[in-house]
């Protein structure tokens, strides 16, 4: 198989999966096998065929068609997109395993629709990852929004409907008003929207126009959850937990920050931003989001809500990495896409496992659960450490490069922000583990004949995935060099 056709195949495979899922909708076992098979073959194509080529320095390209003069639907794989695709497709397999346990354990309805929309969203994420120009990226970006809407509103309740409104309103609204505007502007200024090393805007857009254009892109990418356009992410937590885990910790939100990073690197160009200082303001917006979201996370008692605000905060690390406009910053940001994905998906898996196993959603109710659900909470500990950024966890490396980036950019205040944020994340994550392991189980209060008796580990398929990804966080620490080498292809082509 040529690398070129593999790129097309990667985007199409999930769609083929949809067909099978729909076909086997009546037989859950067959349906979920179809999803798994699709996931595995997708990962094989991406890791086995496309990755080696990109590592060897190739940039496989696939031109589909020209929609309007100068606006092509085309794919081209570069290191950053490669990494994102690997993360999204790899974690899709784990999430599918988890979904099987969770959706059955939780007796969810409309499971076929759930798996179909999930596959659609993954296809969209891969389209975003491989997009060769801003237009193609925009097409798939919107596809992700639309395909995840039915997942957010999965339960069909009034609350889900409201959340769906916020979700669609913010994501669609920002993308149409800001992002599309920026897209037209870029096209008119540069005559193309292709991603090119070094950017396409140098000498074409100048002065404060650069600042405005960058703002349009940064805020237009609602999925990056920069404040004040972050509200959709906590709202989306009404969705079933596998959705929160893969989409709202990995595929959807990472598609957002990936977009910001990619546009900074390949449309503006790091050099242009460094010499003009046009992205300096963005570091401050990102810093504000990092701190404010962490502080809000501290106040949340609902575990998923706390994790959601933690995600908002962590996403801005990546935006910050891009806005620093230094090579270490960009590499750190790119690496954080993978590292945070691994850590946060673990945390969400655990949150779901606690919900299935113990029927608890509030942190204050989780006293002593660690003894009943040791694997779940150990995995939670591993994920927490990685998100905080302590060695020997993968998250420590990306934070290391981000801090290097602040030094390179001579913005020591940002280094301070990252440090404080680490402390804050200890503050909002560690108490969960602490309560679970060091507090006793609550005594029988008379309402429930045996409150602790019914609590045990969630089904096997709900516990295995977080343990796997938790271990993955440790493994990532030792293999960070490979990611680093891959990403160096961005800054030193």
């Amino acid at each position, binding site marked *: 198989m040529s690398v070129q056709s593999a790129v097309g195949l990667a985007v199409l495979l999930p769609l083929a999966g949809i067909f099978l899922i729909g076909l086997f909708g009546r037989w859950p076992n067959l349906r979920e096998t179809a999803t798994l098979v699709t996931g595995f073959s997708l990962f094989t194509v991406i890791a086995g065929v496309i990755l080696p080529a990109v590592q060897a320095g190739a940039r496989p390209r696939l031109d589909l068609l020209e929609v309007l003069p100068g606006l092509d639907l085309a794919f081209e794989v570069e290191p950053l997109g490669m990494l994102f695709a690997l993360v999204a497709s790899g974690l899709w397999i784990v999430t599918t395993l988890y979904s099987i346990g969770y959706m059955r354990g939780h007796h969810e309805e409309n499971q076929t629709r759930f798996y179909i929309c999930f596959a659609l969203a993954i296809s969209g994420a891969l389209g975003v990852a491989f997009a060769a120009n801003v237009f193609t990226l925009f097409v798939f970006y919107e596809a992700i929004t639309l395909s995840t809407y039915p997942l957010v509103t999965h339960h069909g309740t009034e609350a889900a409907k409201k959340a769906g409104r916020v979700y669609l309103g913010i994501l669609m609204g920002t993308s149409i008003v800001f992002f*599309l505007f920026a897209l037209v502007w870029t096209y*008119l200024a540069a005559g193309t929207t292709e991603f090119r090393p070094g950017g396409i805007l140098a000498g074409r857009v100048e002065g404060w126009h650069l600042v405005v254009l960058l703002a349009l892109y940064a805020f237009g990418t609602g999925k990056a959850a920069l404040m004040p356009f972050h509200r959709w992410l906590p709202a989306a937590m009404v969705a079933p937990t596998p959705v929160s885990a893969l989409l709202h910790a990995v595929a959807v939100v990472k598609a957002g920050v990936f977009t910001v990073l990619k546009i900074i690197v390949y449309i503006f160009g790091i050099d242009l931003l460094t010499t003009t200082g046009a992205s300096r303001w963005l570091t401050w917006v990102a810093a504000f989001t990092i701190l404010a979201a962490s502080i809000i996370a501290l106040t949340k008692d609902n575990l998923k809500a706390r994790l959601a605000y933690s995600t908002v905060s962590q996403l801005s690390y990546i935006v910050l990495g891009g806005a620093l406009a230094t090579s270490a910053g960009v590499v750190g940001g790119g690496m954080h896409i993978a590292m945070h994905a691994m850590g946060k998906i673990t945390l969400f898996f655990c949150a779901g496992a606690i919900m299935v196993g113990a029927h608890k959603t509030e942190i204050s109710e989780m006293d002593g659960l660690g003894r009943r659900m040791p694997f779940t909470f150990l995995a939670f500990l591993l994920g927490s450490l990685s998100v905080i950024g302590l060695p020997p966890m993968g998250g420590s490396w990306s934070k290391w490069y981000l801090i290097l980036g602040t030094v390179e950019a001579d913005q020591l205040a940002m280094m301070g922000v990252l440090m404080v944020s680490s402390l804050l994340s200890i503050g909002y994550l560690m108490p969960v583990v602490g309560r679970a392991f060091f507090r006793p189980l609550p005594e029988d209060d008379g309402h429930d004949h045996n409150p602790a008796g019914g609590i045990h580990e969630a089904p096997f398929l709900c516990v295995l995935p977080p343990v796997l990804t938790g271990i993955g966080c440790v493994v990532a620490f030792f293999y960070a060099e490979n990611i680093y080498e891959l990403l160096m292809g961005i800054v030193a082509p």
Partner: protein
Amino acid sequence: MSGQLLDHLANNLPALQIAVPLLSAAVCMVLRRGRTAWVLAMLVAWSSFASACVIFNRVVQHGAISYAEGGWRAPWGIELRIDLLNALVLLVVTAICAIVLTASPRSLDQEIWQENHSKFYALYLLCMTGLAGMTVTGDAFNIFVFLEISSLSSYALIAQGTTRRALTSSIQYLVMGTIGGTFILLGIGMIYMVTGTLNIADMAVQLAAVGPNRTVLVALAFICIGTGIKLAVFPLHIWLPNAYTYAPAIVTAFLAATSTKVAYYVLVRFLFSIFGAPLAFGALRLDAVLMPLAIAAMFAGSFVAIFQDNIKRMLAYSSIAQIGYMVLGLSLVSVTGLTGGLVHLFNHALMKSGLFLVMAAVLLRTGSVRLEAMAGLGRRMPWTMAAFVVAGLSMIGVPLTVGFVSKWYLVMGAIQAGLWPVAVLILLSSLLALIYIWRVVEVAYFRQPPDDAPEIEEAPFSMLGPIWVLAGATVFFGIFTSLSVGAASAAARMLLGVGQ
């Protein structure tokens, strides 16, 4: 021999566009059975569409076609003249006529007395004659004549609606439409006074020689107001919401996609071909009038649409907003802007007729077009509602649908003209579309129907087919844009006198 015959037929296609529906309308009147009339009308409509395709193809390949009626040469005789602009409009109008007609029988059974069916089809064909006539003619006075043919038949078509409100709506439209027609007639009369000709091409030449004297400017203003009423430019739109709401569902789908589009064509033809951009936008500064009105329409129309509980009415207000986009396109007076306006004519015809046909199907099954009636339809009429979602996404302007293509050109035109705020307003107004479309989607997919609601089947295939042809077209022409954008941009260049 047969080759010669075909050739002869091909040369006479422009005249047949008018003659065949006109004569068949008369035949329909005498047919007793509604279904027979329908078959005849189908035959006529689809062959009109086929001949429009042939004409379009010819114009693209060999340039404008001129046909002298009765062999009398222009400018003395009446000329039918088809260039890229009206070839495109003709293509859209005949296509929509044929597709909507295909979906009509079941809906008509429900809404119109059986004995009136053949008369209905006669009126339908008559209206089509008028619309096609306005499009293909190269004679200004003929435009008026055909306008009246299409208008009179559409008043009668609207009056067929099941409620008595249809009658008052029809009268309201009749009054407004007649005023509009009169303005146009007076305008044409004044140009005739100045130039002594009724041939469009000849008028343009003569007017350029005369220059902008007062009579010419008044004529221009009259024609703008007249076509403005027919086109329902804000604030001359008051006839439209009632007419669209109370007309039979099929009639709404038909008129919404054709009548205003042809009016837009007439406006473009007068402004750019006859008066010329320098006169209309230089001497009279029409753009300074039309642009604010267009923007007001975009917001007022969409905003009012958000609060409608009758979905047909909601779509009618949405039409007013969409007409705003088209008018905005021409008021930018640039190739990009005009391309946007013309391409939106094409695109909006597809989306809106699709949406109105969905409403016809919903009406057929639930007996209502109110928002409450849509509850649970996502499950009970999955294919129909899926088409609504697709066409609705296109209204919002999601990429890879036709709505995106229109928006792209309009935003680009606004930025190129240095009108940044206008570009922002275009994008903001599409958010309003998101709100009014999603209101319906939410009810259809998330609200449970009341327990005593009767069982409902999916729409019959005779309606689903046409609905999905239109919904599919909104996606197809959003991806493969060479036909619509190619013709629209070439027409825009021609109208503005810019070389290829």
